[in-house]
């Protein structure tokens, strides 16, 4: 995508007055002898689109698992809308409004697209009428109505990614965490999906954390970057500022991170 329209496409910027949606304080995780995350602290406010970047092995995935509740942190605490959720299981975090996608798309392959989204919608909106409406509205928003009755193995990768995002936002999700949702897509498909995601961000005021290897994509979406290196937070700020940070340049093998404006 052309660098000129980058600024226009970025998500909302941080508003100083807003209360944090997500707050990590001193989060660490050790796997045996490996310190995958050490003393990571940051806060994300409502409506922000934050890019989580860093070289391979920086701890991005571990961070995702810790925030979404699949891996318990060895130290530190996580707060969601001010409430301590450090010990809350993954399913309860999802019901509280924290949703995620997976690096490799993980759908329910024997269920239809509609049912995939329904599974998530009915957890958050138990009354049948309400979750059924929600499923239809998500299908429309993600432009999946034509695929509603198909099963995941019968649709394209781009559509499967859309279903996964649809399943994630169904039922009043307030924090969406995207784990490389654009990898494997063509440029056109990726552009379209970025538009969808930013549309949800603007429309629902959804807070988004993106992990993405393709740097231009992150920069196109995120107004703020958090850079991890060997489990430590080394930079946090607007993309342009982060790109000038000597520590970040050092982390990316002494060269200017490719694609960072």
């Amino acid at each position, binding site marked *: 995508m052309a660098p000129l329209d980058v600024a226009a496409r970025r998500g909302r910027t941080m508003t100083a007055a807003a209360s944090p949606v997500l707050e990590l304080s001193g989060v660490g995780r050790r796997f045996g002898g490996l310190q995958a995350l050490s003393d990571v602290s940051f806060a994300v406010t409502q409506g922000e689109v934050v890019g989580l970047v860093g070289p391979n092995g920086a701890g991005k995935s571990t961070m995702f698992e810790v925030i*979404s509740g*699949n891996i318990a942190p060895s130290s530190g605490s996580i707060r969601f809308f001010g409430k301590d959720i450090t010990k809350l*299981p*993954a*399913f*309860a975090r*999802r*019901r509280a409004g924290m*949703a*995620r996608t*997976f690096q490799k798309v*993980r*759908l*329910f*392959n*024997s*269920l239809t697209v509609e*049912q995939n989204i*329904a*599974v*998530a919608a*009915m*957890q*958050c909106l138990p009354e049948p009428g309400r979750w059924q409406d929600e499923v239809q509205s998500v299908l429309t928003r993600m432009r999946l109505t034509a695929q509603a009755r198909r099963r995941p193995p019968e649709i394209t990768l781009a559509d499967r990614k859309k279903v996964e995002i649809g*399943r*994630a936002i169904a*039922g009043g999700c307030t924090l969406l965490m995207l784990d490389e949702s654009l990898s494997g897509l063509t440029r056109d498909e990726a552009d379209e999906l970025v538009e969808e995601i930013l549309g949800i961000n603007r429309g629902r005021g959804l807070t988004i954390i993106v992990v993405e290897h393709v740097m231009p994509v992150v920069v196109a979406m995120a107004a703020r970057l958090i850079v991890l290196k060997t489990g430590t937070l080394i930079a946090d700020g607007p993309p342009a500022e982060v790109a000038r940070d000597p520590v970040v340049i050092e982390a990316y093998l002494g060269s200017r991170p490719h694609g960072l404006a």
Partner: protein
Amino acid sequence: MLLVALVAAVATLPLWPFANNYIVALAVRTLLFIALGQAWNVIAGIGGMLSLGHGLFFGLGAYATGLLFNSFGLTPWLGLFPAMAIAAAAGLLVGLVTGHLRGIYFALATVVMSLAFEKLARYFVDLTGGDTGLSVTFRGDAPWAMQWRGPTAFLFLSLAVVVIYYLATRAILRSRFGLELQAVRDDEGAAAASGVNTFRTKLLGLMLSAAMTALVGTLYMQFYLNIDPSTAFGLFQAIQIQLPALIGGLGTAGGPVIGGALMILVSEAANIASGKLNLQGVDVLIYGLVLLLVVMRAPLGIIGEWHRWTSRRAGGAR
């Protein structure tokens, strides 16, 4: 339509010209076999938890009804409720202990529990009758005791259970609970990430399946009037229970019905063939070969393969 025709055919079986007590009893055996498969299918087919320990719930159902009848004179019509409750409680315990295990580990853990009960049933001779098993006191034609001299009443009873289980499976598949079970089966991590309380879902599925299995145990006890440790909790039973759904189509409502009927037909045909050929043991061999053939050539079961075949044809036509 097909279902209604099948039900009508089975229900009128005693009126057919060739019908005799042997044929009707064979039909009852088939229906009980199918019902067991349907009960197992709920947790293993829809929920993806391949339990090898369902003999435990079957045996508990049979022993509980028999003991309640012999010791307290409680009619099986009421005894089936505590029997189902005991099995559901056992399902809860099994789930609490093994619910975090997956695949082969869950299968092994459950079969060990069932085999442990086989040993217990042999050990507590005074209560269970030990190796010879537990017999219920026969009262002749006594509908209040769920006992009859002929097999016809059991034909209707077991047919009703199969029909109810079939409709229940269809309802479960479409229900919220069924969607959650299927989501857990397809991808437990993604189900949790979608807000599904996966552990609770698995526990509830296991309890429901256990209670359904126990009800078949009750019918078995009243029909055969005897249950022994290996029939109830043994390895053979553990494997038998899986066949109807595996052969017919795992996780489908019709699968256990088709698979159960087919396997009994094969077993009977093989039995007759071995008698005619005067070759002992040939029936088991044929039965095993058919089983092997289906598992190797049609791993999705009859209904699963049928769906794959029709959808491939539909795909080619597009």
